[in-house]
């Protein structure tokens, strides 16, 4: 085998090995950012015709457009801001989120003050997110008030369960 062929193969192999590393890093990168960026772009695209329609719309319909804007301001994720799970985020995609110490909860709380099925968070018909206490021992607090009925969650309002605090963010 000629010296030249072997040199080409030697350098070629190193190049291929590094190419694999780079491709793997690209996969991680798309795992982090890929989907979210495209979603945001699509949403802005969808918002533009609506805005144009609103300019021409009579006041009565503007009310409805306002409703549409509220949905666009809807929270997209649930963030744990205090407690052992701090930093955990769950994407809100229309599913019900259960919180508690039970192992099958969406968010498993490791907290002696939480009940096994403590609370749940779900969207109502208008896409407004509702928090409901499931008869827990120590209660669920929205800001400072203890919940007795299913209550809509304002954006960024702290929901306290035992030592854990969660909030909804855009």
């Amino acid at each position, binding site marked *: 085998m000629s010296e030249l062929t072997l040199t080409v193969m030697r350098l070629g*192999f190193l190049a*291929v090995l590094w190419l694999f*590393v780079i491709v793997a890093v690209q996969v991680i990168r798309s795992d982090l950012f890929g989907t979210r960026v495209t979603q945001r772009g699509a949403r802005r695209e969808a918002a533009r015709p609506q805005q144009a329609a609103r300019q021409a719309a009579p006041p009565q319909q503007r009310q409805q457009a306002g409703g549409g804007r509220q949905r666009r301001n809807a929270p997209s994720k649930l963030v744990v801001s205090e407690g052992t799970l701090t930093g955990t985020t769950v994407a809100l995609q229309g599913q019900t989120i259960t919180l508690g110490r039970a192992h099958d909860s969406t968010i498993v709380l490791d907290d002696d003050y939480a009940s096994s099925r403590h609370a749940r968070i779900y969207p109502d018909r208008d896409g407004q997110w509702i928090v409901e206490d499931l008869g827990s021992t120590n209660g669920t607090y929205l800001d400072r008030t203890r919940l007795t009925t299913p209550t809509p969650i304002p954006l960024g309002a702290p929901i306290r369960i035992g030592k854990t605090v969660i909030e909804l963010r855009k």
Partner: protein
Amino acid sequence: MSSSTTNTSTHHTSTIGSIGTPSRRNTELALLVFAVLIPVFAYANVGLAINDQVPTGLLSYGLGLGLLAAVGHLVVRKFAPYADPLLLPLATLLNGLGLVAIWRLDQSELLQSIKQAGSAAPRQLLYTAMGVALFVVVLIFLKDHRVLQRYTYISMVGALILLLLPLVPGLGKNLYGAKIWISVAGFSIQPGEFAKIVLAVFFAGYLMVKRDALALASRRFMGLYLPRGRDLGPILVVWAISILILVFETDLGTSLLFFGMFVIMLYVATERTSWIVFGLLMSAVGAVGVASFEPHIQQRVDAWLDPMREYTLSRNGEFGHSEQAMQALWAFGSGGTLGTGWGQGHSELIRFAANSDFILATFGEELGLAGVMALLLLYALLVERGVRTALAARDPFGKLLAIGLSGAFALQVFVVAGGVMGLIPLTGMTMPFLASGGSSVIANWALVGILLRISDTARRPAPAPAPNPDAEMTQVVRPS
């Protein structure tokens, strides 16, 4: 009226379908094809460099590796569809490169002439197949990693038995100064490799229950949280056991691996930096203390501090000294930046354990600094995906188990690579996936299987809520 509105609102939760998260299985497939082709390229390259022809076994070898990767991929697709797309390709690539390097050392006439059997590569392929089989078993039968939580204390007993097995007379084997092997039916098994996984299960289950006591009951002193005396119990026990391993099995690597894994998991569970400070102090005290009276460890430290002196002594026929540490450094040196190319180095001169403990020297010589860096990055990516899995896991047990397994993997890579490169004293562990040896390959495939299972649970979108039976029965009154 009002009752019906609340009812429709709860009913509505079931009608909104959750948007499907991409499972990324096709990405994994593409990467796997890539990961199989790279070792095939290397295999052809070795044949061309040594024998001037494409090796005859190229097709069967490529098909073998490809088949194993395909089986792994199909099982992941079926049983863990949302798992991380990188773990399987990375493990496959590392394993494939290891097979090539072992086969390349098989070709050396020098190694064939001395007892080092000339057919380590087919055996290694068989071990890989067994490893992938265990990987498949883990993914099929371990439906939920939280099941392991039930076996916390059984795991502790199991791990202790595995660790103590090499000390049982008649079963344990004293090979090359370290007692970390047992021989069963003609096979040499390194139980420590399996104990690594079982012990991670125990630590995760134990720390999950105890971490509040360990984290909160402490005093602050000079910026450090000092734990209470009675909370030091567990770390002292694990420390004592790892010291016992060091004294009786005379293996620094195993001892360091277990203690390090415990300290990492303790830190992650309690978020207290003081545990790391304590851990480092205790392992330093233990290692120095034992090295002062244990001749085998003492010898390893000498070889680390002055490899050239050790080499000359061994050349002069002095018993009990080894020339490998220096030879490994020469191999790295002669490789330079870009290496000599596959099959054109002389790492077979290391002779003994060239294809197991010192396999990294072969890569260092034939692929050079560029190749070793890429190799270490592959390991780093594997560990990163493990840590990412731990971050994404929603249950504390899964978090701790994932961090423990990836931490142990990282420590093992560090201990072996550091030993071969002369950063720390050489120990008797093997490079995961690369080195020749059955236990290591099989145990590490099982480890990757568990990580994939946790990552599947963590990345799986939350299940659609069950339809509410009451909502079906109640008629909705709509004002017309």
